[in-house]
């Protein structure tokens, strides 16, 4: 008896679409995070450290082990102001 291969087309389509979507998501996330998986459960401490990493290396996920900070780091911190009146 001939095998109804047409019935397997939907399975193939589902696999292909889920796979493509998942792969594109993964590639997009890794592209935004310098090849690493994204940070999660980011609390204000982590936000502060990532902003400091950006001042030190140029990207929030950039890392370095230099003991001395680059030129200009001491005066590059940002103070958020607000209207008081």
């Amino acid at each position, binding site marked *: 008896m001939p095998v109804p291969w047409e019935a397997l087309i939907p399975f193939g389509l589902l696999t292909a679409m889920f796979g493509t979507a998942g792969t594109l998501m993964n590639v997009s996330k890794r592209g935004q995070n310098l090849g*690493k998986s994204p940070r999660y*459960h980011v609390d204000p401490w982590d936000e502060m450290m990532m902003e400091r990493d950006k001042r030190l290396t140029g990207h929030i996920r950039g*890392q*370095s*082990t*230099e*003991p001395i*900070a680059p030129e200009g780091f001491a005066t590059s911190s*940002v*103070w958020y102001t607000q209207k008081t009146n």
Partner: protein
Amino acid sequence: MSTFHDGSTSTHPYKEPSPLPSSIPKVDELGTTSAPLKSAAFFIGAYCKDYNEDFMLCKAENRDPAHCLKEGRRVTRCAQDLITKMRENCLKQFDEHWSCLEANNQVLNNRCRKPERTLNKCMFEKLVRPDQNHPGSPPSQKPIHEVEKPVFTGVQK
């Protein structure tokens, strides 16, 4: 139509470009980013304990930034000293450990025990042995970083 807005009413982020006055001794800031700092945290705690405690007690007296500049300079210099020594002696293990942390959301858990143990071994021999006594952990169990076969390890990435 344009109105005059006084500088104090700005809602934009503000950067102060002028450096500290020259009467204050200049100490370069620590250039280590978050993952290597987390990896070296216990070692910094043990190596620089006196200076760190001095700084914290000084801050407890008065939160004004100008009050604790001297203690702050000492803390920075001590941390710089330790990071330099770590890089000289244990660079490979240090790099492995903080790279593992960075790939795991910078959480010190069972996923990075192997590089952590090699880094600890290298550091204990050459530099400093921190007291990894976790306050609040149940005394009847082994400390989690010494458990041989932990239940929760990582997922395949």
